[in-house]
């Protein structure tokens, strides 16, 4: 039983680190935020495994849920602003 739990913990940790690296190295902000939400939910699982249900609840609700929603909105806004600027530059170049 302990061996099984050890393997479970290893898989838990490896996936957590993999999600963190994937979120940090993703070039697309939207994709990075989605990976970050997955990371937050996975971290909630790790907190639950560490017998810290309070932290797990807070992590899932605030870290993954609301933080993710806020960052998705921010990424959307940043992308819109970026395309606006690109369009402005293009039309400026056409006029010149």
């Amino acid at each position, binding site marked *: 039983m302990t061996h099984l739990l050890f393997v479970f913990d290893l898989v838990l940790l490896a996936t957590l680190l993999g999600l963190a690296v994937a979120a940090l190295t993703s070039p697309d902000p939207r994709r990075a935020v989605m990976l970050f939400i997955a990371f937050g939910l996975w971290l909630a699982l790790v907190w639950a495994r560490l017998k810290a249900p*309070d932290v797990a609840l807070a992590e899932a609700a605030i870290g993954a849920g609301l933080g993710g929603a806020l960052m998705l909105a921010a990424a959307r806004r940043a992308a819109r602003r970026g395309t606006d600027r690109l369009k402005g530059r293009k039309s400026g170049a056409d006029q010149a």
Partner: protein
Amino acid sequence: MSRRASLAVSLLLGLLTLLLLWVFAQALAQQPGPRLAELAATELPRSAVSNPVTAVLLNYRAYDTLLELAVLLAALLGIWSLGAASPGYQPAGPALEVMADWVVPLLILTGGYLLWVGAHAPGGAFQAGALLGAAGVILRLAGHQRAGLPSESSQRLLAVSGTAVFAAVGLATLAFGAGFLTYPPDWAKWLILLIETAATLAIGTTLAAAYVGGQPPENPEGVRSR
């Protein structure tokens, strides 16, 4: 970033990693000294709640929680000073609307449950407030311009209420000679519940208003009569 700058940053990061690993190894090698956990557990019956996490957050370390609420308030002030909010989303299609009709009351109910159960089991003001905030996010996604929140003046009152009630309780205990945020044991349960209720409303309002992302719209046209 130029190549030299990124090289310097990675060098510094490597040094920081080595330092942290060394601190971790030192901490592992040392004998565990006196811990606060035992003290917290022995004083638990006097804190009027049986959940140690709530006891730490609302009784032993209430000052920290008060400052956390103030940080949330400051964040909301920053967001509101960015200017008016964007108009928001189109009114939702029937599937999302029905889902919102079901999920939002459930979220509010679960938030109230978490607030009450926080005294003796995992839960509490921050989790309950996060659920209220999530209800606001769903309403905003379903086309409600103000994320289900009342007018701006009421939002201001709600957002301030958490910090204000917390500080008022602290000043009241100070006035009665017990010291700032030192609850008299007979009253502690109700004072903690009062603070947590106000904090839940303030956190829910703040998080939902943060998702709106600017000063709330004056006359929300997205409000539909149901």
